[in-house]
């Protein structure tokens, strides 16, 4: 590397590249400081401009998934089983709700299991469909013959879904359903976990 040359002796080809009026060309001692300041500012401005031109689209791209439904199935009720299979007074039945098509990012996948529901008809014939997702932290709830039991932190729920014991702050979440031509159709809904209130997730 060559030795340091004293400042102020601009190389001759520099002048041919930039006009006389340009601050680049004016390198007299009195203007040296302001010239330096100008170059500094201009360099930072250009650098900032280039940075912004790349960073802004990059950030916009990166934050795309926020608020986006990248994994989604139609909200329509899903065909579960013939109603006659749900006998009044019998123990609850677990059914898996399978979406005919689920969009997952770029893919459209057929017959995707979304979740499970517990279905029961009381002796009066009233039907309940409960989400098998524990409202505490989301484990899969089972049935022990008398009540629903969550294996993770031992919340237990009565047949109608009400909490009996354990950390869950609310009862099992009911799922909307309908009966069409003798078949039970249940809509799959995810609720926010943890809290006492039932809000859609």
């Amino acid at each position, binding site marked *: *590397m*060559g*030795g*340091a*040359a004293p*400042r102020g*002796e*601009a*190389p*001759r*080809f*520099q002048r041919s*590249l930039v006009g006389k009026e340009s601050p*680049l060309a004016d390198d007299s001692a009195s203007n040296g400081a302001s010239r*330096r300041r100008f*170059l*500094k500012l*201009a*360099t930072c401005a*250009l*650098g900032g*401009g*280039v940075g912004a*031109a*790349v960073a802004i*689209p*990059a950030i*916009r*791209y*990166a*934050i*795309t998934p926020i608020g986006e439904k990248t994994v989604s199935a139609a909200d329509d009720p899903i065909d579960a089983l013939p109603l006659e299979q749900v006998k009044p007074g019998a123990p609850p039945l677990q059914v898996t709700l399978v979406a005919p*098509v689920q*969009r*997952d*990012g*770029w*893919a*459209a*996948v*057929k017959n995707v299991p979304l979740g499970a529901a517990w279905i029961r008809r009381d002796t009066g014939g009233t039907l309940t469909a409960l989400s098998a997702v524990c409202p505490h932290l989301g484990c899969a709830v089972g049935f022990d013959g008398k009540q629903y039991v969550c294996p993770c932190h031992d919340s237990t729920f009565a047949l109608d879904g009400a909490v009996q014991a354990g950390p869950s702050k609310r009862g099992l979440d009911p799922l909307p359903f309908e009966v069409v031509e003798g078949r039970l159709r249940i809509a799959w809904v995810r609720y926010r976990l943890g809290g006492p209130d039932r809000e859609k997730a």
Partner: protein
Amino acid sequence: MSIGSWLEERTGWRSNVGAALDTKIAGGPSFAHVFGAVLGSILVIQAVTGILLAMSYSPSVSAAWASVAYIEDQVALGWFIRGMHLYGSSAMVIVAGLYLLQSAVWGGYKKPRELVWILQVVILGVLMLFPLTGHGLPWDQQGYWATKVELGITASAPGGAYIVQLAQGGNDMGNLTLTRLYAIHALLLPALVLILWLVRRALIRHHGLTPKWNAPDTAVGYFPDQAFRDAIAIALAVAALIAYTVYQGGAPLAAPADSTVPFDARPEWFIRPLFQLRKYAGPLEHLAALGAPVVVGGFLIGLPFVDRSPDRSPRRRPLVMAALALGGVVVLALVGLSFRDDANDEDLAKRVAWSEKRAAQARSLALANGVPPTGGTAVFSTAPHWQARVIWQKACASCHEGDDRKGPLITVGYGSRAWIRGFLTDPSGDAYFGRTKLAKTDKAMKAVEQTGAELDALVEMVYAQSGAKDVDAKKVEIGVGLFDSVCSDCHEREAGKDSDPGPNLFGMGSLAHRASLIANPAAPTMYGAHNEMPAFAADTTESDRAAIATWLAWMQTATARDVEALGEP
């Protein structure tokens, strides 16, 4: 104490940055020294856009095309980021090439900088590998076929078969090819460039950048004079890259890779000279494609050891200058000729237009319906009536479409009121039963003699058989009366009743009727003994027949434009 000084005490950043900014540039600040900075900034852009793309890309044969189409059409500014990445890779090669050319002209390879020069040649080579490994990643027709051709050329080199098996991960292109290309493109090559770049920087620290041969014997600090020039050059380069990306509307994406659909693959522009050379080389094409890069690479790497005089002035090195100029002209001419040949090829233009249409169709289907997990090409099967149209092409079109058909023409408007009217008034017309054997016998249906309101009523009565909702009940009633007096000699209209010689009209035109007609047109309720159409009960499934019936129902109200918009099955 300010944070800055606190950090300074612990890291020495101020003095380090200060020293770096004051690095002396021999010969003083100049726009001629901007290439390194511009190349560096483009590499940063490539890294940023590459990481962003990797966030939404899936390197598997079944998902690659779909994920790239997703980036293009569903990720905010995805088209822009991918465009910047693609065109940025070209910019990278161009700037690195110019930088190398400058070194060559300035004699930057001369003692003691031989290794700096060789590193620079190697870096350019590695940079070229980025587009070469990257263009296969979308697994579209372009990338698939271009990669296939490149692997084919590599295979013809000595030992090439092993390289090919390594690169494609086995005996054929597939999932392992993609994961390997991806790992090489996104992990191996960046690491390699980084290492080469660091080594080169260390060497440059040692020797200083090559000044122009006639530069004054001065050395000025990097900041701010050279930094300002660098900033201007970077800003111009990035602005040009952005402008080009926007002008092009981002990077192209061809239809999903399909080994059964031919495609006019073209290599990267900087491979075009080889592509063109092969055309002239005839039987020696492999030798040309493999030999030319070896000759060029050998010349560049050997240069410092051939041209050893310390004189760096280009004027006093006419041989080297002539060789460089000749090489440059030949390369540019070959690129130009290759593009010119393509531009003059009308058949190519037609094939390209066809491919582009297919690509656009695949993209819009992917956007509307998503891509089935079986892979990119399956996206076509999500087109409306795809199942029906595929069967139609195979089993029905030869008799019901085109000039050689033997049965009635089935096209848009089939089964509509206008079609029924035309049929009733001219059942043996060319578009109707004209081409059947029946039409030439006395068993052929006679044209209906009714006109005006009576004909309207008959048309409405036949039309109503399909179960259509938009019928005029009054007219139907009149039509039924007319039917009983003029048609009932030949046709029944009660469900399930055998009908001879003409078919039972009950349900005619409905989905169920059409599906069962396809299954067995010779049923006694259908054409019975007069049937000439093959039965398809064995060759089609119930779902196939239902699909065709649904498609025919769609055709009834469709226009030729609608059919065109569906694309080819």
